[in-house]
């Protein structure tokens, strides 16, 4: 507990949507920030007790240990299908998936596209850190052209290894998607914008306005071989030019949401 005196003002504490379990994430990884944004939003909306999260396979496979909500753990890439099953039988619940880029944009592309196309009333938090983190930094569909990874040691060669998949742009083409945006977590101003987007995404679901997804550009200092600060710079200087921040789909009903 944080001790305060009558003259102190408590301005920062653990969101009640978190358990007290310390996370297993590497120093400088932005998963912790992304988790916190979700936790703050669930607390502010008063929906902790009616939320069911769906964890992916990847670094955030243990997300269920950190959130003070019900949780299930999906097979690699299948979180949107599992979430569909939950939400369809319990439509008054708040259901979200939390997925990395290997999970969502590689093996799970079929499930995410179909869930968005069906307009499932789900919220997806999509962590784009341009590699497979948990298995040790292999090339992902989101790896930047020329980026060195443990499975593209000479740098991603687009003529043989293809181009980055831009998930927000891709899903925004689907009529079932109501709110699809990309944000970054590389500095406080962007983190605040990301928080607002996460809030709108959950509000979209709670209001029954359709499928929502927030793509969050994230760091992976360990596998990128960078200090945490350098990794944040990499997001700002290298990732954002390939993955421009912005609102890719905001349906008219979502646009007039009052937060």
């Amino acid at each position, binding site marked *: 507990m944080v001790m305060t005196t009558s003259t102190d003002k408590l301005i920062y504490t653990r969101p009640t949507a978190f*358990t007290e379990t310390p996370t297993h994430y590497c120093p400088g990884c932005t998963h912790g920030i992304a988790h916190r944004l979700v936790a703050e939003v669930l607390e502010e909306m008063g929906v*902790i*007790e*009616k*939320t*069911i999260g*769906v*964890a992916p396979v990847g670094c955030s*496979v243990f997300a*269920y240990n950190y959130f*003070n*909500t*019900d*949780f*299930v*753990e*999906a*097979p690699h890439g*299948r979180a949107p*299908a*599992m*979430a*569909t*099953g*939950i939400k*369809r*039988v*319990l439509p008054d*619940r*708040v259901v979200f998936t939390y997925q990395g880029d290997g999970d969502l944009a590689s093996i799970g592309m*079929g*499930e995410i*596209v*179909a869930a968005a196309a*069906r307009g499932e009333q789900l919220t997806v938090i999509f962590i784009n850190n341009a590699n497979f983190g948990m298995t040790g930094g292999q090339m992902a569909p989101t790896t930047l052209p020329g980026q060195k990874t443990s499975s593209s040691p000479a740098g991603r060669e687009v003529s043989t290894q293809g181009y980055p998949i831009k998930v927000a742009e891709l899903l925004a083409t689907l009529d079932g998607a109501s709110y699809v945006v990309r944000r970054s977590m590389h500095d406080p101003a962007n983190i605040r914008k990301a928080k607002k987007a996460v809030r709108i995404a959950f509000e979209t679901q709670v209001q029954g306005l359709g499928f929502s997804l927030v793509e969050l550009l994230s760091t992976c200092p360990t596998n990128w071989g960078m200090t945490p600060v350098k990794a944040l710079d990499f997001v700002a200087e290298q990732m954002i030019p390939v993955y421009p921040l912005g609102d890719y789909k905001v349906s008219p009903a979502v646009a007039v949401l009052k937060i």
Partner: protein
Amino acid sequence: MTRELWKGNNAIAEAAVRAGLEAYFGYPITPQTEVLEYLSRRMPELGRVFVQAESELGAINMVYGAACTGVRVMSTSSSPGVSLMLEGLSYIAGTEVPAVLVNVMRGGPGLGNIAPAQGDYKQAVHGGGHGDYRQIVLAPASIQEAVDLMVLSFDLAEKYRTIVMLILDGSIGQMMEPVEMPPMQKVRRRDWDWATRGRDQHPNGERRFLTSIYLDPIEEEKTNLRLLKRWNIIQANEVRYKDYFLEDAEFVVIGFGTAGRVALSAVRAARAKGIKVGLFRPVTVSPFPFDAVRELVPRTRGFLVVEMNTGQMLDDVQVAIRGRVPIEFYGRPGGVVPLPEDILAEIERLSSDILSVDRDPRQEWFKRMSALTPAG
């Protein structure tokens, strides 16, 4: 009670509805597509959940998600589609949530054909997804039995927090027979102490999570042993089979599903010719009725295993009999349904031939088969 004419696939769909099915997730594949079509109308009519998934992968993971909330949920598919679902089945088994799946089996491997077959016995009974788990597998031989077992499937799945798979040869799904439908059950959402429905639905507001990950091998080993312990209870309590003319039988035919049904006609014909032969038809092929087969050993001169494959259940029969009595095999794989007269000829051969426990039943059959249908 009235009997109505039902097509197999429609009948199991209606039976599932009457058993309290709350959510169905499926994908079209012949010869099970009528289940999907039937439920696409029937489920919304009752205010229940129907989703045509993007793939069998999608369908089984929707089942997995819904199963975690503790409602009665099912999918149906056919052989190639079930192969795609195996990943999900392994996770469902590892998470210990109840789920029901129907496989209306067709000829294979690969794309195969859409004719009735029993080539998925090993996948259903011995294999399936990765890891160390078992599932209940029920094999009906008529539409009435399929309907009755469909209802039972949900009860067993919930009782043991396990997967129950109903395996229908394509013919059971496609043909029509008179059926007495079970009564309509109310949809009951039970207060399972494991279901994840959000904390405000749990008695103490506690947080629940469902997962199949146990990074510590000791914990995974405990899980494997817990699953086996549960399986031992299933094996002790849930073995089901039907027997016909076994009282004085010197020879016993063993077959499941359609093969067992055709064999019954052959057994009747053989009885008319004075051959003392009976039929043993496993209804639970998993758990396999090992003890019941073993009990037949002292009074049986020879067994004939009949399957619509190249001898898959045969291995289980051999385990049960342990080489103490001769076994012969007759199979028609690839979507070919054996005729009663073919099986009758085998029964006649069984009763007149010199049998030996040293013969490999599959290889002896293959030699005879090759003379008729040379392997390509």
